[in-house]
């Protein structure tokens, strides 16, 4: 299956960001099948790693003012979380 790409905004110190544990976060889809849905955000339960190859999909990281980090991380999305019932 083709690798998917997402990004997320991280507001805490990157070096202290937890890896390899399930967490809830907001991610944006950068490669949807229908391009009109690019940047669609959603809450997800996911595992992430600072290694680019550990999990199946690529995760780009941005800081609080939108600064894109040079190297991508990787992500495994376990499920989308619907906050609105």
């Amino acid at each position, binding site marked *: 299956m083709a690798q998917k790409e997402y990004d997320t*905004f991280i507001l805490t110190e990157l070096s202290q960001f937890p890896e390899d544990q399930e967490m809830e976060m907001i991610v944006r889809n950068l490669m949807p099948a229908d391009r*009109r849905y690019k*940047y669609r955000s959603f809450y997800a339960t996911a595992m992430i790693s600072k290694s680019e190859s550990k999990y199946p999909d690529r995760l780009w990281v941005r800081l*609080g*003012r939108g600064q894109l980090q040079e190297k991508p991380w990787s992500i495994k999305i376990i499920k989308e979380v619907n*906050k*609105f019932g």
Partner: protein
Amino acid sequence: MAYKFYKDNREFIEALKANNDLVTIEQEVDWDLEMGAIVRRVCEKKSASPYFKRIKDYPGFEAFGAPLSTYKRLAIAMGMNPDASVPEISNEYVKRTTGDPIKSILVDKKKAPCKENIWTGKDADLFKLPGPMVHDGDGGRYLATWHFVVSKDLDTEFVNWGMYRQMVFDEKTMVGPVLPFSDMGKMFYGKYVPKNKPMPFATVIGCDPLSGVAACAPSPIPEDEFTGMLMGAPVELVKCETNDLYVPAYAEIIIEGEVIPGIQIDEAPFGEYTGYRTSPREPRTVYRVTAITFRNNPIVTVSNMGVPTDEGQLLRSFSLGLEMRKLLESQGIPITGVYMLPESTHHLVVVGVRPAYSGIASQIANLVFGSKLSPWFTMVVVVDNETDIYNKDEVIHALCTKCHPIRGIRKYEQAPGTPLYPFADPEERKWSRGSQVLFDCTFPLSWPKSDLPIKVSFNNVYPKEVQEKVLKNWKSYGFKD
């Protein structure tokens, strides 16, 4: 009496075209940054408005950028001579908006172009609209950058039209900041949230130009009636499909829904009116969509906040300054005018005054900083009547020569602020705390007349007959200007 006005965006686009102030772009542009980059460059170069005929992924949709980012466009929107000066436009605006408000009228749905297409239920999907990714690094696509949000008080008939930015989160959800001191903030957080009630809203995209001007204006008059005053004719409104709000019948796109209490979602960052991405990504107000209605071949309006000058900076500066003019005149202060520099991102207001008594600059600053609009004024520069408030060079000269670096400056601390100030520290942003300052550029009245510095300018230090001779012979001396 109706003034010359444009009932919708389409007529306004034609007017800009007739005045050589429009570039029609036939080649396809990408909603993902390209369109935003074009509008940004237009703002920075003060170029003609771009009218995008083909948007990638969105056949049938068009877009109109930088609709009101110059005084020329504002003059055209008001039906005035496109070359009208800022004081002329200001005086006309004050004249029109000082009379009696003009009530809107309701029209039947069949006569409202904004009802030509109606999406409800699953069809009401925000990604079916070409919301642009305005700047690289923004928190999302901002469908609403030049628009207004209609909301209504829970207990009264008070209706507000205000420009509150909205980021698309998912198919049905938008999110954006609603500051607690804003009209909508007071209604939602002050009344709906304590009762855990959702607040109906309608976002109006692609309105006629004067409705946009009114939505930017900080007047106490309801914005639809204020628009009527600017037009000299009532605005035509039509009822929404899924709530009881009313929206301009000739608008391009209407997004209806509810503002939801009890939940917030991360919004931002976004390139803001100050020319920076300042306010942090943080949980903000959530809008859930119930319906989208739109005209055939709808035209999305795109503003691009950044370094000066965009329409937010220009129109907020314009109308904030003139509201202060009305306030100061109502108090009998002998002002000669008020002008807010658009380049100051509506942070610096210049007030011209006849210095009739001591302490007049402080009195002006106290009124400006004590007004409801004070968070938008961080600097007040008071100049005397020999300084042209519209001439930046003269204002800077007065600031640097007449304002004593210690006695001429008065600081105001613990003021209300916004999280958008680039100069504020993170704690100040978090709590919307501001600081303000007065620059008094008037010479003290206590100085003996013989000690007053004399301004050395062509108009001031030559006899009238010498000035006239020089002006008469200027070209024969060989000068071309």
